[in-house]
């Protein structure tokens, strides 16, 4: 009987090795462990054994049974694993085939840059002020220290609606509107559309965007202006960006300065973008003219402030190396998709 049990063990082990499907495995299980299975048959014959032999053979039979059960379980697992592997192999796809298109629109490049500017300035504690585009002459010129028949009006050829109303030629009137309503401390930016009577060409557009900034408080100095613009330039154009001031004249600031930033393409060595200058003119700025403050009932002896303004299109064009301004207003999707 011992031999018989050992033979069953050997047979089953051999046959198990050859099993290649779950069905075969089940068949083998039934033939071995089923009610009429070989091992079951042997166990049934245990009654004929002597009482000395019975526990010994019984032990052996149980060992062999659990051995077979374990082997079959292992086999089952191995079969399942390889079946899954086969299935997965069959499910292989071409990962280089294109994905299902998900169309996402984009903000216009002008708005993207405007948004970046707004983010930078709001993080510095600026609020965003808005004002009308169709504006009174008073706000666009007179209250900005540009009286009627002042030659400074020539540099901003203006669209008029009637004698008193025009399309604002700069975002600066918002400064005045804010100062009339709000007492210092004031810290605002004002982005928006402005209009000048320039024919459309590669570098001019009668509609364009500016961003204006204004700070008024006690003890604001020109070195604060420089500090703030330096911080701005670093955030906008990179940590190594430097700025420099050039004296200039704007009627609503005194002193006034044009501001250049070191070229963010070449770092100041000179390249095509900066026309080999190493610097790019980016904004105008200055200390708010006392006449402007007084006009808004703010005493220049107590308060001082600075203002700055930049053309957004100019930054967009430099940033993305766009050589023709018309592209920005044509709205060709093949252009807009690039940003």
């Amino acid at each position: 009987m011992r031999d018989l049990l050992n033979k069953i063990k050997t047979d089953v082990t051999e046959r198990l090795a050859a099993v290649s499907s779950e069905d075969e495995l089940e068949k083998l299980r039934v033939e071995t462990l089923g009610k009429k299975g070989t091992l079951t048959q042997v166990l049934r014959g245990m009654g004929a054994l002597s009482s000395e032999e019975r526990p010994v053979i019984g032990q052996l039979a149980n060992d062999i049974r659990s051995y077979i059960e374990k082997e079959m379980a292992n086999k089952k697992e191995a079969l399942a694993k390889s079946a899954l592997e086969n299935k997965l192999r069959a499910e292989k796809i071409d990962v280089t085939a294109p994905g299902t298109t998900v169309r996402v629109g984009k903000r216009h490049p002008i708005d993207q840059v405007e948004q970046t500017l707004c983010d930078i300035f709001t993080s510095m504690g600026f609020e965003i002020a808005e004002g009308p585009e169709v504006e009174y002459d008073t706000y666009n010129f007179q209250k900005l220290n540009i009286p009627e028949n002042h030659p400074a009006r020539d540099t901003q050829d203006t669209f008029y609606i009637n004698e008193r109303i025009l399309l604002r030629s700069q975002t600066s009137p918002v400064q005045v509107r804010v100062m009339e309503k709000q007492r210092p401390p004031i810290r605002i930016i004002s982005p928006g559309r402005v209009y000048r009577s320039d024919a459309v060409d590669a570098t001019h557009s009668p509609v364009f965007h500016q961003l204006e900034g204004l700070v008024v408080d006690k003890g604001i100095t020109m070195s604060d202006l420089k500090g703030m613009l330096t911080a701005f330039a670093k955030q906008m154009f990179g940590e190594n960006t430097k700025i420099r001031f050039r004296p200039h004249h704007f009627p609503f600031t005194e002193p006034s300065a044009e501001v250049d930033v070191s070229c963010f393409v070449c770092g100041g060595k000179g390249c095509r973008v900066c026309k080999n200058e190493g610097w790019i003119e980016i904004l105008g700025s200055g200390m708010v003219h006392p006449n402007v403050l007084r006009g808004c009932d703010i005493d220049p002896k107590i308060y001082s402030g600075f203002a700055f303004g930049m053309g957004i299109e100019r930054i967009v064009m430099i940033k993305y190396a766009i050589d023709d301004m018309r592209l920005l207003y044509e709205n060709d999707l093949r252009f807009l998709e690039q940003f």
Partner: protein
Amino acid sequence: MNLSINWLNDFVNTEGISIKEFCDRMTYTGSKVESYTTLGSDIVNVVVGKITKITKHPDSDHLQICMLDDGEENERQIVTGAQNVFEGALVPVAKAPATLPGGVTIKAGKLRGVESNGMLCSIGELGLTEHDMPGSDNSGIFILNSYIPSDTPLGKDIRDVLMLSDEVVEFEITSNRPDCLSVIGLAREAKVTFDRPMTVSVPKVTESDQNISDYLSVDVKDGRLCKRYAARVIKNVKIEPSPLWMRMRLRAAGVRPINNIVDITNYVMLEYGQPMHAFDYSMLDGSHIIVRCAENGEKFISLDGKEHLLSSSNLVIADEKKAVALAGVMGGANSEIKEETTVVVFESACFDGASVRLTAKSQGMRTESSSRFEKGLDPENCMAALDRACELVNLLGAGETVCGCIDVYKGKKEPATIELECERINKFLGVELSKEQMTKILRDLDFKVEGDLIKVPSFREDVAEMNDIAEEIIRIYGYNKIEATPFKGNVKAGALTQRQVFKNRLHALICGMGFMQCNTFSFVSPKNDDMIMLSPDSRLRRHVIISNPLGEDTSVMRTSLIPNVLEVLEHNNAHNVSRACVYELSHVYIPDDDPEKLPQEPYMIAMGFYGAGDFYTLKGMVEAIFSDCGIKKTRYVACTNDPTFHPGRCANIIARGSVNIGTIGQIHPAVAQEYGISAPVYMAYLPFETLFDISDFKKQYKSLPKFPATARDLSFICERELEVGEIEEVIRKSVGKLIESVELFDIYTGDRLEQNTKSVSFRITFRAADRTLTDDEVNACVDKILASLQKQLNIGIRK
């Protein structure tokens, strides 16, 4: 302003300063340099030569062979086609290899077999004009004999002989510094910038006999418009070209030489910044100059031959009978300096800037003179300029200055005085300069400083208070020496307003749906209204109108974004972009009934596409927007009468009972055709401001359902015309809150149904918050639904 460095050197010696350094440093002290040009650098290897012998070319009728003495050992042979050459002529010789203006290079070669070692030049080939060299003829070789001294060494560089070498610096002078529109003004800036001495000598007038009162009297009627009027008389005038040096300086400054008297007036204007005028005395009726306002309707013919109709706001210089000049703008043809002129009146006056500007503008003639006056000139400058003109007359031998001068000075002003507040200036600029440093800078700039009092020079009308003084000091000290200090001051919370946040949110949402944002012009063509077929009485046809537009196409402010977005679609369609999905969120401009009031500028949203879906695609997107904004319970009301849209595929969207929150639909095919688009175009047009007003971002958690839902699918047969929205409403109302959702999942029309009917299928989900609904309860609900539909809409279940 074009500055000749040769001219500048009369006042401040700039030797040893490279042109690049000159330009950079002048820019950094406030005189912005646009560019510079080195005159004469394009002429290389051109010298004075003398023609010693001319022979005919053996093989040509029109070519001649010239032998030239150009100062070298051997004579030079040059073949020329010009016919005006003669033996003994002095000519400009381009010695091969040579370079001429315009990048022309001259090489040695053979002309019909005869060797030619260069070229004889015309004035044009030297970059000159007949005005620069009066009496010359550009059709032949430039014969130098009457233009240069006869002892000029042969072989001398033509640039030195004709004074063609100069550096010309173009400055952008800002409107507050008219004093810098002059050589002397810029010399003053150069003096301070480079810390070099400056010499301006007081002009010396050599007066002859007679007295000016024998010739002329002057009356100024309006002392406000004419602050000063000074005049002198020159007699025995001989009109001829001015000398080479003067012509070349005028040329460098970009002014065309004319004759000695006119050139003197221009020369003085450039040197002193004071516009001058010269009248032919013989043309002045009554020997009397009257400075007065024109009569309304008075006619005047200016020097350039144009006739002007004047008004009482135009100041004129007149004699007893007629206007002879438009004050500060241009002289009249009637008193112009001519060849025969023998007595000249020089005018050096100071007119009111605003008045000159207005006149120049209204008469459409901006001149060198008017553009200076309009910036406000210094009346103190008049007399020096006038005397300088007379000095030059003497120097040029152009005539004799009659004794005495006329000077009517009604607008004399005391110089402004400003306190020197060192501490305040330092604090304001963020620097630490001593009083001595400040005083030196101011004195260098011709300010007088006595104690704490600054006297502003008369030519600096722009300087009025502390800020101005601070600017003077800092521009000379150096803007870039200001330290950048970390920004301080009361910190404000840089927060966006709710409206700004809402706008950003909508942009992000709409972009996320695949719409590309566009930016279009705010002014449009009034024809757009017809393009989108606005009804004749539409309010949107009332525009804010630009009085001086660039053109018809940009002449009115838009009242709708729809045409703009259609134009964008048109552009892309025309460029074969197969699908386009774009939006604009921007202002429209709605005029007020009162033209003196500003228009409303609400934001609108226009979302349009072709090739990217249909009505329901767009509707789904719009619904997502409303949902995101917390706008619930919207109704879509079919709209058949919006002429821009397809009458059968358009809806007005209603929220909160009766608030219109937009229009959605297919653009009328006839409108789309106007934009050249044959594919269906869909557009949603939403009022941003209304959306913002009714948006609701208040959110409160609702507990998740604890009990299961039961769904029933029901199909109904109804008339095709019946809107599913109506069926849905009846379903919802019939049961009330046990209905969780009503979802349309199929609409069927076809052969298996009667004509003009359709089958609509809904999945209706029922749920109670506090229990599991029993079948009986759900069946009761369904029965109620069926009964209501039958009763209210007369429709039954599909069997």
